[in-house]
C-alpha cells in the first residue's frame, strides 16, 4: 500500500474513534434534550448546565477520595435531583404561558447556573483528578485509551437501560403516553406532573454522567463547560429528529464524527461552526431530522 495512503488510513481511524468518543458524550446529553422536548415541547437551554453540574459533583466526590464507580452514579443522581427542583420551581409555573416565555426562562436558568458556578467555584478550569490510570492500546498507528473504552461502554449501557426503561416498563409507557397526548394521559389517570419530573430526572442524570465522563477524558472542568456541548447536543437532537430517542444517539455520533473529521483534516478554528452549519442545513432541508417524519401544519 502507498505510504501516504496508509497514514491517511491511520489518521482516519483515529479521527473516527475520537469522533465516536465525542459523539457518545453528545448523544448522552442529547438524549435528555430530546426526552424533555418530547414530553413538554421545551427546548431546555439549561440542559447543558446539568452536564456541568454532574461534572462538578464527580470532581468533588473523586477529589474527596471516592472511587469512580460511586462518583458516577452520585453525579447522575445529583444532576437529576437538581433538574427536578428546577423543573418544579421554574418550568412548571411557566409551562402554560406559552413556548417563548418558557424558552426565555430556560435561557435564564442556564445563565444562572453558569454565573452562579463562576461565583461560587471560580471561573478558572479545575484539573479533574485521574480516577482511573490512563492506559493506551496501540494497533499499528491507531491508539485507543481505556478512557475511551469506558466512555463507549458506559454510553452503551446507559442507552440499553433507557431503551428498556422507555420501551418495557410501566413508567416508560406512561412517559410515551404523556408525550403523545398530555391531556389524554391525564384522563387515563397518569399523574403527568410526576412523569414530567421523572423525565427531567432521567434526562439530566444522563447529562450528569456525560459530565463525569468528559472530566475523565479531557481532565478539566469549569462552570462554562456546559454552554457549547449543550448547544451541540441540541444540534444532535435536532439532527436525529427531536423527540426521537434513537435519533439523539444517531445525531450525537454523526456530529461528533463530523467535527473530528473537519478538525483533523482541515482547520480547528472552524470546529464550532460545523455544528451550527449542520444544524442550519438540517433545519432548512429536513426539519424533522434524520429519523423524523415531516408533518404538515394543521390549518
Amino acid at each position, binding site marked *: 500500500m502507498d505510504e501516504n495512503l496508509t497514514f491517511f488510513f491511520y489518521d482516519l481511524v483515529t479521527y473516527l474513534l475520537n469522533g465516536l468518543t465525542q459523539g457518545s458524550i453528545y448523544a448522552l446529553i442529547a438524549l435528555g434534550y430530546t426526552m424533555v422536548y418530547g414530553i413538554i415541547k421545551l427546548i431546555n437551554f439549561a440542559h447543558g448546565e446539568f452536564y456541568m453540574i454532574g461534572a462538578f459533583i464527580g470532581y468533588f466526590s473523586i477529589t474527596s477520595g471516592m472511587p469512580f464507580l460511586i462518583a458516577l452514579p452520585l453525579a447522575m443522581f445529583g444532576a437529576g435531583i437538581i433538574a427536578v427542583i428546577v423543573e418544579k420551581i421554574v418550568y412548571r409555573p411557566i409551562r402554560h404561558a406559552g413556548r*417563548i416565555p418558557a424558552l426565555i426562562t430556560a435561557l435564564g436558568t442556564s445563565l444562572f447556573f453558569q454565573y452562579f458556578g463562576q461565583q461560587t467555584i471560580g471561573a478558572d478550569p479545575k484539573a479533574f483528578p485521574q480516577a482511573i490510570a490512563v492506559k493506551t492500546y496501540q494497533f499499528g498507528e491507531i491508539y485507543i485509551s481505556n478512557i475511551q473504552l469506558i466512555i463507549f461502554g458506559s454510553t452503551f449501557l446507559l442507552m440499553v437501560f433507557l431503551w428498556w426503561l422507555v420501551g418495557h416498563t410501566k413508567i416508560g409507557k406512561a412517559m410515551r403516553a404523556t408525550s403523545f397526548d398530555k391531556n389524554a394521559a391525564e384522563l387515563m389517570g397518569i399523574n403527568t406532573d410526576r412523569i414530567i419530573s421523572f423525565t427531567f430526572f432521567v434526562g439530566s442524570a444522563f447529562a450528569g454522567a456525560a459530565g463525569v465522563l468528559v472530566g475523565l477524558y479531557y481532565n478539566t472542568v469549569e462552570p462554562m463547560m456546559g454552554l457549547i456541548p449543550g448547544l451541540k447536543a441540541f444540534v444532535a437532537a435536532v439532527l436525529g429528529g427531536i423527540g426521537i430517542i434513537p435519533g439523539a444517539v444517531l445525531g450525537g455520533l454523526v456530529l461528533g464524527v463530523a467535527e473530528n473529521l473537519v478538525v483533523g483534516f482541515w482547520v480547528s478554528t472552524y470546529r464550532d461552526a460545523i455544528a451550527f452549519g449542520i444544524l442550519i442545513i438540517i433545519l432548512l432541508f429536513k426539519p424533522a431530522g434524520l429519523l423524523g417524519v415531516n408533518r404538515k401544519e394543521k390549518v
Partner: protein
Amino acid sequence: MDYFIYLAQLSGIFIILAVSLNLINGICGQFSLGHAGFWAVGAYTGAAFTVFLDLPVPGFVNLFLSCGVSFIAAALAGLLIGVPCLRLRGDYLAIATLGFGEIIRIVIMNMDSVGGPRGFTDIPKLANIGWVYLWVVIIIVFVSNLLRGSHGRAIISIREDEIAAESMGIYTFKYKTLAFVIGAGFAGVAGTLYAHTQEFISPMGFTFMWSVIILLMIILGGLGSITGSVVGAIILTLLPEFLRFFGQTVSEWRMVIYSLLLISLMLARPGGIFGKHEFNVLKFLGIGKKEEANS
C-alpha cells in the same frame, strides 16, 4: 462627567439595538436569537470602512457614511439569513438564528485582516452622544411611522396569526423578511456607532450572550412596545453600573442577578413591563382620543 456621557451614549446604542430587535421579535413575532451577529457585521464593516478607506472627509461625514455602509452590510446579512430561516417557526427559528449569529462570529474570528481573535484596534473615536441620539430618533420615528401605515400593520398581523394574515392576501414571507432586514440593518448602525465609541472591538464582544441581553431588554420592557424597548435598554445598560454602588460583591454577582431577574420577570409578567402598550404623551395628558380618531 465624561463617564456619565459615555453611559448615556452606550444606552443610546443599546436603544437602537433593542428597538431594532423589537421590530423582529416583538412586532413581527419572529423569534430571533442572532442579533449580536448583525451588530458584529455592522461594527466590523463600519470600522473597516473608516480605518481601511480613511476617506479625506470630516469625521462626522465619515461616521455617517460608515453608518450607511454598515446598515447595508448588516441588512444584506439579514437578507441572506432571513430568506432561508424565516420559513421556520418559533423555537426552531430561534435556534437557526442563534446558529447563524455564532457562525458570523466564528468567521470574523478567522479573518486576520480585522484582527481575528485579537480584535480590531485603533478605530477612530468618531461617534459622540449627539450622533448616537440622532440615530436613536431616526429609528424610533422610522419604526413608529411604519406601524401607523399598512406595511406596519401587515408586519403586526404576522405576529397575531400568520395563517390568517396569509389568507387575507398578505404575502407574509415578504413582510417577515422586510422586518428582519430592517432590524438587522439598524443593528448594523448600532454596531458602527459602538465601534467608533469604544475604539476597539473583538469577536468575544458579540457572543450569543449579547443576543440574550438585547432580548432581555425588549422582554423587560414588553415585547412589541417601542417605549418598552427604550426603557429596557436604558435599565439594562445602567443596571451593572448601578450595581457597582453596592460594592464589589454585588457587581461581581451581576450576571447571577440578571438571570434571576429574567426568570422572575417571566414568572411574574410573561408580557414584560409595558406589555404591548406604548407610552403616549397625548394620551397621558387626556387628549389621546382625538389623535386616535384621526389616524
